[in-house]
């Protein structure tokens, strides 16, 4: 160990910026090796024709041109919109309703204990491994001996015992329902925490004015927790565009691509069809779409915040 310098150091020592560079070295080197370089390599692969062995052959924009006329590619991105509905729109709407309810009725009538137990229960699907819950759902929805259809047949509703995940007509709505189940706890927990910040007197004043429940929700709840609604929407949208594990476990993108999504499409291009260049192009387009959507959302939020502060 170096001998400890006796005496004091000046405040300038702490302010000196150069002395901090060594702390960035391990993190930045690993970041470059694991994220930046692979991303750049992926970009390069997307301009090549390559089956994963031998030398990649440069073909310029050909993969991208092919993508533009590939119906699976367009289906997968159309399904991304369905994923956003299932992971962002529906859970956020239900989450708002439930969080406001907790806050308004249950919290006051039964005390915070009941509210926190309910909150934990809703959050449970977010904590368990996606694959474990996905496998459970696959079994529940299995057409012949699965839990749901067994119950439906037992009560005489045989006509409702559909091939939920195996029929192109029902597969996408079924997957979306399972995703809502996965996601629902996240907005509830965030919104409930946010509502604790809201002054109860606001509500009481509104109640005295005779404002109905729905009006209070629109005029008080939503404006008060807008920052949280934005964060939930942004992070949810980013993860909805990249959703992979539930699709892998529930349907494998099928039947007939009806539940295929970009991340799964690129995965199968890489590893089952050995079209590395093509898969890399899909992944690159996906990355651009995610960054673009996130950027637009952040800009939009910044602008509406600014408008608010100018009011």
């Amino acid at each position, binding site marked *: 160990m170096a001998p400890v310098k006796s005496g004091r150091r000046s405040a300038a020592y*702490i302010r000196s910026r150069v002395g901090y*560079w060594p702390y960035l070295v391990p993190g930045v080197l*690993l970041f470059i090796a694991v994220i930046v370089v692979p991303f750049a390599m*992926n970009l390069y692969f997307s301009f090549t024709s390559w089956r994963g062995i031998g030398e990649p052959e440069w073909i310029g924009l050909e993969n991208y041109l092919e993508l533009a006329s590939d119906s699976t590619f367009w289906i997968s991105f159309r399904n991304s919109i369905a994923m956003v509905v299932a992971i962002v729109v529906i859970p956020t709407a239900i989450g708002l309703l439930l969080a406001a309810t907790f806050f308004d009725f249950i919290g006051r009538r039964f005390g915070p204990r009941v509210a926190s137990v*309910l909150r934990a229960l809703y959050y449970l*699907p977010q904590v368990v491994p996606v*694959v474990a819950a996905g496998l459970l759902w696959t079994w529940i929805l299995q057409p012949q*001996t699965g839990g749901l259809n067994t119950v439906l047949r037992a009560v005489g509703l045989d006509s409702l015992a559909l091939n939920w995940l195996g029929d192109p007509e029902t597969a996408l709505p079924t997957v979306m329902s399972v995703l809502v*189940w996965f996601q629902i706890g996240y907005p509830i927990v965030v919104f409930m925490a946010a509502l604790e910040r809201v002054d109860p007197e606001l509500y009481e004043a509104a109640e005295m004015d005779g404002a109905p429940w729905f009006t209070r929700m629109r005029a008080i709840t939503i404006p008060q927790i807008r920052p949280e609604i934005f964060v939930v929407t942004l992070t949810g949208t980013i993860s909805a565009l990249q959703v992979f594990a539930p699709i892998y476990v529930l349907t494998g993108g099928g039947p007939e691509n009806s539940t295929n999504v970009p991340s799964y499409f690129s995965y199968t291009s890489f590893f089952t069809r050995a079209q590395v260049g093509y898969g890399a192009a899909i*992944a690159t387009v996906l990355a651009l779409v995610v960054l673009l959507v996130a950027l637009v959302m952040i800009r939009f939020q910044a602008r509406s915040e600014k408008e608010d502060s100018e009011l």
Partner: protein
Amino acid sequence: MSASASLPAKVRRSRHQRGATRWIVLAIVAVVAIVVLLPFGVMVLNAFKSPQDYASSGPLSLPSSLYFGGLTEFWTRVDFPQKFMNSLLIAVTASVGGVLLSLLNAYALGIGRVRGRTWIIVLFLLANMLPHEAMMYPLYFIAKEIGLYNTQLSVAIIMTVIRSAFGTYLLASVLSTFPRSLLEAAALDGASRWQVLWRVVFPIARPTLSVLLVFFFIWTWNEFFFPLVLLVDNTTQTIPVALASLTGQELTNAPLINAGALISMLPTIVFFLIFQRTLARGITAGSVK
């Protein structure tokens, strides 16, 4: 509570008059809770039910006698203890490593305020949004080239860096508000930067670091994509990958699937119960930032 007691009687009465809305809303809350919990309940019931029992009385009845065949079949089939250890090894390495890297990075960015920090932070932020598919194949290729393919180490390193990208972004903004006077006082006492990091910054940032640690652990434990691609061997795979290998014919084996899902969920549920407060704090703090 005292507030509601002091409310004028008129208001309290009018609340009771709007009973219908309240009951509708309460019914929605209850229905959603039941729908969320039902799959878990069905899982527990059927994990201990023999195939004959299931065939005769269906998924919603209590098992007529406790059956452990599904549990033992899953346990030995996937060699659960080994998968558990693999998951544990990767999750511990990536969460501890991820927090450590985040702290070092954030110390330079948030407290050291090194030149170009804004751009570096933006880069880390962008990395968080990047789909993993957009770096998957090169990582798979590199891992094969350098002999790390099919090792727990490959997944541990990748997850460490991905977690640190998130942690750096979060911690850098937390540490940028760190009281300068504390740092300067420590320097006047003769502390080096390294000593300031561990004796001043670390103790104060500890609550945030523990939230990060808990989240990194559970995220990595549940991670599916990288282990799926990089771990092909029974001796290296994690719990989610082993579970995903149950397909086709096995999906009609009710006790096997339910017991497998139950055993695989148990560690995370126990973890959730232990760290519930920390998790709740993290979700709250992370959402405001």
